[in-house]
C-alpha cells in the first residue's frame, strides 16, 4: 500500500469511527441507579439520569433561581396558599400522550398516593389540585410553603406519562415514560442505561447526541482510566485526590461546583440512653470539638484543597450562608479551656462511628489527631454504611460522621434535622425556639424574612452545636477535551442542553 492510500484509509477509518461516536455520549457514574421511577427512586445517580429523561415543572439556574421548564409561568396568591401555573402547550410524553393540566393533576395524585411513593412528604403541603384549563392548573396548599417550588424543580415535579403509569403501576420504573429530551431505550442492571433522543421534544434542536449511555463505574481510578483511554466521554465525581492527574492530562478538562450538601459529625444529644452522656448533655464539649479542628487543613490534607471548608448546613458561597458566623479558625487553647470549664481538664473520650470507606476514615483520622491535641480522645468505630445508618436512626451511637447530599431550598438542609419532629433528626435535638424559627422560614416566601430566620436559628445552633459541620463536597466532573457546552450546577446534575462533542 502506498503512503497516500494508507493516509486515505486511515482518514476514512478515523472519520467513520468519529462520526459514529459523535452521536453517542458516554457518561460514567459512580454507582448504579435504583428503580427508574421518579416517584419511587432514591439515588443521586438516578436523578442524573432523570435530568435527560424526565422534564420537571420547573428547573433551576446554577445560582439556584427557579426557572420555567414544563410550567411557563406561575404565581402565589397573597396568603401563599394557592399556586397557579401556566403550562407548555407543545410538550408530549414519549408514548405520545399530550402533556396538559390533567396530566399534572394525575402526576401529583400519583406522587401523593402511590403506596411506594417517596415523594409524599415533599408534596405534603398540597391539599387540592384544580385544573383551570387545558394548560393551566392551581395547587391549593394547607399552609404557605416556600419549599414547594424547589420540590417541583426535582423529582416531585417530574412528570411521567399518566397513561404509561396507569398501565405499569409499581413496575413503571422498568421502562419509564416521561417527557424529557431523551427517552428510555434499555437498561442492563449494573452495566448501562441507554437513552435515545426523543424527536418530538419541544426543544429537540438544543440536544446534540442521538443516544446517551450511563455506565456505573464505582472505582474512581477505573472511572478516570476509562476517560483517559477514551472509553467514556465524561465522568462524574472525580476523586479530589485524582485532580492533579486529570488536570495534567491534555485530553481532559475539569469542571467543578461546590455542592449543596454538607459533611459533619452528628452528636447524639437525646436519642435514647446513649445520648445521656457528657457529649450529649454539655454543649461546651461540642464547641470544644469544633474549635479543636482546623477545617481548612482538613480540606487541604484529605481533599487536596478541592472542597470547601464549612461550619453551616449551607456552603459559604450559598446565598443562605449566615455571614455573621464565619468558618472558625482552629483554637486549641479555647478548646482546652472549654473542656476544663466542663470539668474535663484531663481530657475526655469520644466514640465516633464512621462509614468504612476510604474518605470518611481518612477524614476522621485527621480529626482524631487534631482533637487529641486539645485533649479529646476520639475512638473511631468504622461500620458498613447500612449498619451505621440503622444504628444512627436507632440512637445506638455517641457521634456519627455523616453528611447530607443537599437540597435546592435551604429548608431541605436544616428543617428535618434540627426540628423536634424532624424526620431525620437522629441527634434528637429539640429546641422550641429553633422549631419556631425554622417553621417560619419554611412558610415565608419573602427571601429576607427567611434569611433573618435562618440567621437567628444559626445563632442558637452555632452555640448548641448538635452537628459539628466540617466541609462541603465539590462536584468534580472530568470531560474529554472535545466536549463543549457543559455547565456545572451545584446540584451535581448533568444537563445536556447545548453540549456537543467536537470531532478530532
Amino acid at each position: 500500500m502506498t503512503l497516500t492510500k494508507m493516509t486515505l484509509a486511515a482518514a476514512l477509518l478515523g472519520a467513520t469511527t468519529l462520526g459514529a461516536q459523535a452521536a453517542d455520549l458516554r457518561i460514567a457514574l459512580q454507582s448504579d441507579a435504583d428503580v427508574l421511577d421518579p416517584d419511587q427512586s432514591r439515588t443521586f445517580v438516578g436523578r442524573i439520569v432523570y435530568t435527560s429523561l424526565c422534564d420537571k415543572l420547573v428547573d433551576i439556574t446554577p445560582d439556584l433561581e427557579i426557572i420555567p421548564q414544563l410550567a411557563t409561568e406561575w404565581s402565589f396568591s397573597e396568603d401563599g396558599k394557592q399556586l397557579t401555573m401556566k403550562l407548555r402547550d407543545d410538550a408530549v410524553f414519549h408514548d405520545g400522550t399530550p402533556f396538559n393540566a390533567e396530566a399534572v393533576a394525575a402526576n401529583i395524585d400519583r406522587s401523593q398516593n402511590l403506596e411506594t411513593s417517596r415523594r409524599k412528604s415533599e408534596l405534603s403541603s398540597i391539599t387540592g389540585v384544580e385544573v383551570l384549563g387545558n394548560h393551566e392548573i392551581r395547587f391549593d396548599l394547607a399552609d404557605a410553603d416556600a419549599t414547594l417550588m424547589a420540590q417541583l424543580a426535582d423529582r416531585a415535579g417530574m412528570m411521567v406519562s399518566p397513561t404509561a403509569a396507569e398501565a405499569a403501576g409499581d413496575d413503571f420504573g422498568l421502562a419509564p415514560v416521561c417527557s424529557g429530551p431523551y427517552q428510555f431505550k434499555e437498561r442492563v442492571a449494573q452495566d448501562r442505561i441507554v437513552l435515545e433522543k426523543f424527536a418530538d421534544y419541544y426543544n429537540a434542536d438544543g440536544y446534540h447526541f442521538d443516544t446517551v449511555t450511563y455506565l456505573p463505574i464505582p472505582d474512581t481510578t477505573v472511572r478516570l482510566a476509562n476517560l483517559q483511554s477514551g472509553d467514556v466521554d465524561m465522568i462524574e465525581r472525580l476523586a479530589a485526590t485524582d485532580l492533579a492527574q486529570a488536570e495534567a492530562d491534555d485530553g481532559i478538562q475539569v469542571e467543578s461546583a461546590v455542592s449543596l450538601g454538607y459533611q459533619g459529625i452528628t452528636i447524639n444529644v437525646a436519642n435514647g440512653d446513649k445520648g445521656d452522656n457528657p457529649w450529649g448533655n454539655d454543649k461546651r464539649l461540642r464547641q470544644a470539638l469544633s474549635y479543636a479542628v482546623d477545617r481548612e487543613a482538613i480540606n487541604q490534607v484529605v481533599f487536596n484543597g478541592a472542597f470547601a471548608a464549612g461550619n453551616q448546613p449551607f456552603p459559604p458561597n450559598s446565598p443562605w450562608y449566615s455571614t455573621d458566623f464565619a468558618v472558625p479558625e482552629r483554637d486549641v487553647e479555647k478548646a482546652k479551656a472549654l473542656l476544663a470549664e466542663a470539668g474535663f481538664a484531663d481530657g475526655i473520650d469520644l466514640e465516633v462511628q464512621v462509614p468504612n470507606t476510604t474518605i470518611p476514615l481518612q477524614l476522621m483520622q485527621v480529626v482524631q489527631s487534631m482533637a487529641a491535641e486539645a485533649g479529646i480522645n476520639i475512638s473511631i468505630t468504622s461500620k458498613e454504611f447500612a449498619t451505621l445508618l440503622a444504628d444512627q436512626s436507632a440512637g445506638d451511637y455517641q457521634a456519627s460522621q455523616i453528611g447530607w447530599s443537599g437540597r435546592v431550598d435551604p429548608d431541605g438542609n436544616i428543617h428535618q434535622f434540627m426540628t423536634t419532629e424532624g424526620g431525620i433528626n437522629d441527634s434528637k435535638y429539640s429546641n422550641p425556639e429553633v422549631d419556631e424559627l425554622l417553621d417560619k422560614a419554611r412558610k415565608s416566601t419573602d427571601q429576607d424574612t427567611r434569611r433573618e430566620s435562618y440567621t437567628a436559628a444559626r445563632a442558637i445552633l452555632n452555640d448548641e452545636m448538635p452537628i459539628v459541620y466540617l466541609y462541603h463536597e465539590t462536584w468534580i466532573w472530568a470531560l474529554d477535551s472535545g466536549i463543549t457546552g457543559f455547565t456545572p450546577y451545584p446540584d451535581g446534575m448533568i444537563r445536556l442542553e447545548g453540549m456537543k462533542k467536537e470531532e478530532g
Partner: protein
Amino acid sequence: MLSFILRRLVIAIPTIILISVFVFTLQKLLPGDPVLAMAGEERDPQVLEFLREKYRLNDPIPVQYFTWIGNALTGDLGISLRTNQPVLELIGQKLPVTIQLATMAMIFAMVIGIPAGIFSAVKKGTVTDYVANVVALSGLSIPNFWLGIMLILLVSVKWKLLPASGYVPLSEDPIRSITVMLMPAFVLGTALAATLMRHTRSAMLSVMSSDYVRTARAKGLVERKVILKHAFRNALTPIVTLTALLFGELIAGAVLTEQIFTIPGFGKLVVDAVFNRDYAVVQGIVLVTAVGFIFMNLLADVAYVLLNPRLRKQ
C-alpha cells in the same frame, strides 16, 4: 454410570437444603435494616412500613424462609428490593457474563499453568524450574486488584490497546466481547494458573518416578511420548479434581475482578446486593452458585471415571 450419577444427585439434595437455610439465617443476622438501607436519605415511616409489609420482613424468620423456599421451588426467586427486577431475570442476565469470564480465565489458567507445571517437573532442579516457581509464586501473591489496576493503567491508559473496563455481550459483538474481557480474564486466570502449575508439577513428579514410566523409557520411547502419553495422562486425575475445586475459587475471584473491571456479572451483583441488604438477590445468587458448584463437582467425578478405567469397575 447412571446409578453413580443418581447417587451423587441424592447426596446433593440435603446439601442444597442446608446451604439455603444457612444463607437465609446468616443474612438475617447481618446488622442493618434493608428497608432503611434502601430508603437512603428519604425515610418516610409510612413508606418504610409499607415496604416491610410488602417484602414480608415483619413475618417471623421461619415463615419468611418457607415462603421463600416455597416460591423458589416453583422457580420464583422473588424481586430485587432495589430495582424491582425479578431475581431470576437478574441472574439470567448476569450468569452468562460470569461464565464467560470464568471460562476465559480458566483457559488462561490452563494454558499457562499446565504446560508450566509439566515443564518444571521435567526440568526439576534446573534454573527453568526455579524461574517457573518464582513466577508461579508471584502469580499467587500479587493481589488481583493491584494487578488489575496496573494493567488498566498500562494497557488501556498508556498504550490504549484494550478498553479499560466494561462489558459487551457475546451475542452483540463476539470479537469486542472477547477483547474487553481479555484483561480481567488474565488477572483472574493468573492466580489460578499458579495453583494449577504447582499441582501439575507435584502430580507429574510423583508419576515420573513410577515404574511404568521407567518401563516406557526402557523400551526406548521418545521422551516427549513418555511425558505426554504415559506420565501426564496419569497425572491428570488430581489436576481435574483441582480444576473443579478451582471453579469455586474462580467465582470468588470473579467477585473482586468484576468490581475492578466493572463487569456486570454475578460477583458484582452479589456485592452490591449485600451492601444494599437486597436479601432476595443475595439468597438467589448463593442458591444458584451452590447448585452450580455441586454440579461442577459432579462433572469432575464423572470425568475421573472417564479418565481412570479402574474407577469404572467399582
